[in-house]
């Protein structure tokens, strides 16, 4: 049961990254992809009906994590106090920038929110990557299962105490940002036509080069900082299929980009994200929050909710997820196709 919930939470977070990932990426690239008001609005319209729902996966994933692993929730949220609150502020700024931009038709107003949208999206992508980096590197949990990390100390992942931001976690942040730039550019390419489409493809192509470099660097750094990450693969070799999915996605992105097949390129960047995240999660299992001192690590067993709680949760969670998937399929189908501005709502 604990393993089931581990997979369930991982799945929800992966879905969050896949879905909100493209609108975060869109936020980062929109200043470069869109050259005039018309194009800006097209990009916003492409994510307008869906970004809020995408973000719900973060809330729902967080909620599921809280109920399946209450100890993990308490420990990690208080331990990552400052970065989490900063993430909240960024989510607020970004949400407002998407929704409020269109309410006043003034170039200064629009430019201001465009800037906020860019800053919010970009920093969020970096913070999310850095958060994952922290999990992989391990945190200084005490024997009660709590820790508190400063934002930074001397930027080395090996010093004690280490900060939230060190060169390793920042590298992970940049990797996440680049991933979402490619992913977002692919989505915008799917949803748009003509010049906007061409520019998105070009951004995706350039960012891909950086992504390959960062993927290689990031992988090497990960095994250097946390050599134990290889253990899971040694113990359960079938896990190797996950990084292979990521590699296939990485190759697929550029192949389909060059062939101008946007939908397939978007699927390839999705595969890359799924592959990378599941590889990480697979390697971390059965830990949920690795500690610097391995004895204090939180695992699926010592952080779990009661058996009864997890069992009743299974019933409503399954119903809720089926409903959520139905909404998503319906909404994405209703708003499918290229965005054209004459379809604007109010």
């Amino acid at each position: 049961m604990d393993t089931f919930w581990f997979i369930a939470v991982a799945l929800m977070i992966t879905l969050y990254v896949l879905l909100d990932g493209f609108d975060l990426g869109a936020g980062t690239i929109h200043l470069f992809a869109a050259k005039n008001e018309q194009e800006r609005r097209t990009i916003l319209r492409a994510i307008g009906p869906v970004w809020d729902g995408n973000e719900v996966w973060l809330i729902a994933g967080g909620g599921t994590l809280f109920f399946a692993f209450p100890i993990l929730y308490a420990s990690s949220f208080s331990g990552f106090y400052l970065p989490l609150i900063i993430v909240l502020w960024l989510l607020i700024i970004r949400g407002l920038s998407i929704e409020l931009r269109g309410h006043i038709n003034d170039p200064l107003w629009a430019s201001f929110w465009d800037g906020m949208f860019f800053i919010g999206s970009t920093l969020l992508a970096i913070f999310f990557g850095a958060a994952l980096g922290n999990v992989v590197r391990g945190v200084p949990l005490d024997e009660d299962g709590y820790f508190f990390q400063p934002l930074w100390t001397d930027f080395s992942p090996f010093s004690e105490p280490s900060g939230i931001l060190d060169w390793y976690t920042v590298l992970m942040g940049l990797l996440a940002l680049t991933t979402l730039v490619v992913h977002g550019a692919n989505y915008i390419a799917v949803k748009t036509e003509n010049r906007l489409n061409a520019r998105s493809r070009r951004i995706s192509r350039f960012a891909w080069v950086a992504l390959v470099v960062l993927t290689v660097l990031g992988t090497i750094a990960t095994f250097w900082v946390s050599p134990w990450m290889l253990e899971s693969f040694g113990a359960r070799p079938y896990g190797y299929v996950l990084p292979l999915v990521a590699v296939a996605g990485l190759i697929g992105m550029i192949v389909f980009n060059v062939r101008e097949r946007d939908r397939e390129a978007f699927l390839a960047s999705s595969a890359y994200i799924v592959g990378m995240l599941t590889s990480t999660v697979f390697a971390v299992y059965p830990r949920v929050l690795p500690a610097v001192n391995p004895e204090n690590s939180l695992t699926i067993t010592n952080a779990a909710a009661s058996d009864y709680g997890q069992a009743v949760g299974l019933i409503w969670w399954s119903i809720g997820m089926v409903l959520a998937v139905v909404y998503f399929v319906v909404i994405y189908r209703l708003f499918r196709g290229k965005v054209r501005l004459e379809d604007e709502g109010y």
Partner: protein
Amino acid sequence: MEDALTVSRLQFAFTVTYHYLFPMLTMGLALLIFVLKSVYMRGRNDLYNRAARFWGKIFAVTFVFGVVTGIPLEFQFGTNWAAFSAFTGDIIAQTLAMEGAFAFFLESAFVGLFLFGERRFGQRLHWFSSLMVFLGTWASGYFIITTNAWMQNPVGYRVLENGNIELNDYWAVLLNPWMFAQYAHNMGGAVVCGAFVMAGLGAFYVLSGRHVEYGRIFLKVGVIAGALSSLWMLFPTGHFSSDQVAEHQPVALAAMEGHFQTDREADLVFIGQPDMEKMEIDNPIVLPGGLSILLYGPAGGEVKGLEGFPEKNWPDNIPLLYYSYHVMVGLGTFFIGIMFLAAFMLWRGWLYTFRPMLWVLMLAIPFPFIANTAGWLTAELGRQPWLAYGLMRTSEGVSPLVSSGNVLFTLIGFAGVYLIMGLLYIVLMVREVGHGPEGEHETLENTENLTA
């Protein structure tokens, strides 16, 4: 300000109070928008459709503010109240996670559809999405109230050998007896809020001679909904709420009522200032024996005063609790008076031309926000000094390793962000109201096509 507990309490109180200003309006408006849209669907009077669309815009902006200020609350359980989350997570995380699974997904899907889909998908689906938005926001309210009801009145758990607790009866938590009166009372408060805002804006339009035909619709719908919901707040929901406080949290009741000494003929205090040193009410205006009669009927009965309880179980801010409760009840009484008078005038056909009444309705707009806030302050201050009543004290729930300096940093940050957001909200509202329901203004590229 020196300890993390105080600052964390301030931060949660500030962020949750600020947040709830928005949902109390959206939950109320969601119902009224559904009513407007349904009236349109029956009679095909286009005024009602435009009215629904106009309130949809107000709803949309308010909803966004509610969403972005709501996310920090779910996070803060973990960031600032880690010990509480670890202790009660097996239970309260069920209802919080269910809110995500059942309410948020539904809301996000149908709010998008409601705002973007009218022209594309037609009137029937638009009406249906207004219904689903209403149900989604009210489901959200249910899960939050259920979570709070558990903190007020913990049920469905068992205590383990190591002193921790775990869930052992899921339905007991979902159907917590405390929840029913609280939910009914809270949602009624949201309708009061929506109704006063709608009627007040209608009064403004009629008074200023702009969009008069819409102003009259807003007045009619707002006043009818306002009269019904204001009464609903007193009876049955308010009555049962105070009964269950009297039964389960007698010390909170004594503090709310400013009742210090145990008495068989306890007075009902209308006005006065609690003096915590002398343990009495200064400048009192009371109904002699009123509290006993209110709680036990004409025969009366003994009502335990604060002195009858150990001081360590007293709510830790009794004067504020007392004022919150009295502000809520006092305003609620005025609401009933205002709305019934307005409803009578509406019935007689005087309302649209009787300017003093319109002025009252217009100026009343802020007060439901104050009353709802005071109501929540009453519930939450009355729960003190407990986080989970009788199970865990507030002082035990705070995150063990987060320092007060860090919390103060984030509290100041929230204050700054929320100040700017408040200004933005006002600017946007003033603009929307200025454009009015006919607003073919520049940002709505094709409202004109929407009527098709």
